[in-house]
């Protein structure tokens, strides 16, 4: 039996705060990734939906409806619209894992760790962002291979990335808030259609919002998804910004784009802050 003398006390708090937090964030994100993508099946299954949309649904709708009768390619239009389904589902399912953590996982151990508790939320967000990015890249690539016509420029990529990232942050904020407030998985799953799927049908994912009745079109303009999709299409599909004009009705497309980005940013900041606050409050009694 050998004896090992080891010093104790405040180990985690001796390193510079920023390094410590970054290290903890990476550790927690790696944990979440290991739990949610532990095998190839867990990575492949979420890709089925975007691949089906890009290869089957978008071309079929294009053929059945005869496209948009504009300069915009309908396969590309629907493919970008599908982001409005992929991201919410990825975020909502990530929220489900928060409930699993709370009931049968290591959440209590994580709450006992000497780290800011907001990192538990932000690390999950990092993984959702990575997963959503992966799905969106596959979706656009497959849609392009299937014949979708995209007009991708550097500034277009910037608009697309900004809109999709901020929308993902918003959706994860919603998911985290719900996960913290809803006690059981069954109740949480019951909320999924309303939160993740319903806005998809109002936000101009499959058709432009100007074809909606007036009241519904006005409602659509309040949804962050409508703004995010219009921005993503402005970036990748339609440099004329038809979707942005439908929302704002202004003559300057760039101004409209910045306004829509501000809307999505506002929703993202508000809901991720709400998600963190709700999680922190639910974690203590």
């Amino acid at each position: 039996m050998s004896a090992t003398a080891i010093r104790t006390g405040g180990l985690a708090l001796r390193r510079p705060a920023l390094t410590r937090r970054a290290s903890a964030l990476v550790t927690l994100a790696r944990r979440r990734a290991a739990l949610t993508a532990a095998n190839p099946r867990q990575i492949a299954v979420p890709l089925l939906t975007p691949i089906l949309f890009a290869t089957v649904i978008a071309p079929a709708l294009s053929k059945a409806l005869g496209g948009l009768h504009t300069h915009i390619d309908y396969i590309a239009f629907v493919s970008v619209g599908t982001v409005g389904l992929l991201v919410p589902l990825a975020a909502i399912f990530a929220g489900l894992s928060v409930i699993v953590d709370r009931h049968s996982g290591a959440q209590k151990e994580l709450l006992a760790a000497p780290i800011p508790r907001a990192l538990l939320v932000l690390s999950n967000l990092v993984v959702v962002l990575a997963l959503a990015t992966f799905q969106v890249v596959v979706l656009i690539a497959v849609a392009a291979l299937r014949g979708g016509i995209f007009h991708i420029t550097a500034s277009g990529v910037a608009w697309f990335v900004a809109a999709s990232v901020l929308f993902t942050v918003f959706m994860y904020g919603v998911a985290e808030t719900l996960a913290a407030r809803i006690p059981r998985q069954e109740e949480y799953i019951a909320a999924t259609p309303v939160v993740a799927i319903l806005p998809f049908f109002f936000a101009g994912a499959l058709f432009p919002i100007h074809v909606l009745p007036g009241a519904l079109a006005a409602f659509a303009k309040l949804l962050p998804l409508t703004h995010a999709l219009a921005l993503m299409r402005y970036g990748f599909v339609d440099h004329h910004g038809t979707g942005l004009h439908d929302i704002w009705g202004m003559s300057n497309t760039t101004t409209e784009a910045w306004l829509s980005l501000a809307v999505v940013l506002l929703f993202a900041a508000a809901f991720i802050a709400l998600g963190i606050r709700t999680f922190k409050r639910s974690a203590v009694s």
Partner: protein
Amino acid sequence: MQLTYAQDTEFDRPAIEVRALRKVYRGGVEAVKGIDFEVAPGEVFGLLGPNGAGKSTTIGMLTTTVVPTSGSARLAGYDVVKEPRRARSVSSVVFQEAVVDSGLTGRANLDLHARLWGVAPAAASTRIDELIEAFGIAELIDRPVEGFSGGQRRRLEIARALVSQPQVLFLDEPTVGLDPRIRHELLDVIAGLRSRHDMTILLTTHYLDEAQQLCDRVAIIDQGEIAALDTPAMLLAGLGDEILELRVDGDGDAALASLRARGIANTDAFAIGSSLTIALDGRPAGETIAAIADAGVKASGFMTRPPTLDDVYLRLTGAPIAEAA
């Protein structure tokens, strides 16, 4: 292998200081009613009481998952409300229920703790290997935890708590729900932790034998208040070397009052239903049994035995701990 620990903090400072700590939950339930205690570095301290007594709320306040309504608590000098992260950095918790990532391997669970508590990678690797060896989990450490038995998982959780070499280790009902064999194995493991100098252990349990076996001092907590706090030996001393148990026909309280009036039972005696427990205080058991018969109390099932913490608990709270739990 034996690990020894040297602390950074001053040795004259208590590892745990609790002052007038109180918790009232929403709805007005007062779970903890202004308790006070101190635990010295290296001490094993037991919080003993039934479910609902306030043990878990107390641990929750000390581990910063329950916000105190009033009062204060410090771990190694760090205020749990004002400096929660510092307080968490010097402590680890083994929870009552399973708190692990079942989909990850045992080693990944240990590694996660090391990283979150800021243990340097090289030191963490060495320490994890030592703990795996010390806790006898080398064979299964690289398998997913979902395949572990209850006892193996408990060992893993205790090993995990030690990876960061805490100054204060909280063990919240560590053996609850385990079968007797695994429970006794685990008690040996926990008893082994005592040899790790200067690590303070706060153990909650409603198994009185565990508290008696493991703790330097015990606080008996009942309905949010500390009913008694001392070493197990001193708590037992109040009941003498030997006690007499008997069963009476009819009302136990009335029989006890009658025996007290005749000086056969003193104030340490107590009745639970029709069972009486009387400290003999050096008198021969036969003499006391004869006196009970002379007093006209019809009794049977006489038994003498040394007192246990169970008797102390019954005397203080008036209910068996198992019944209260």
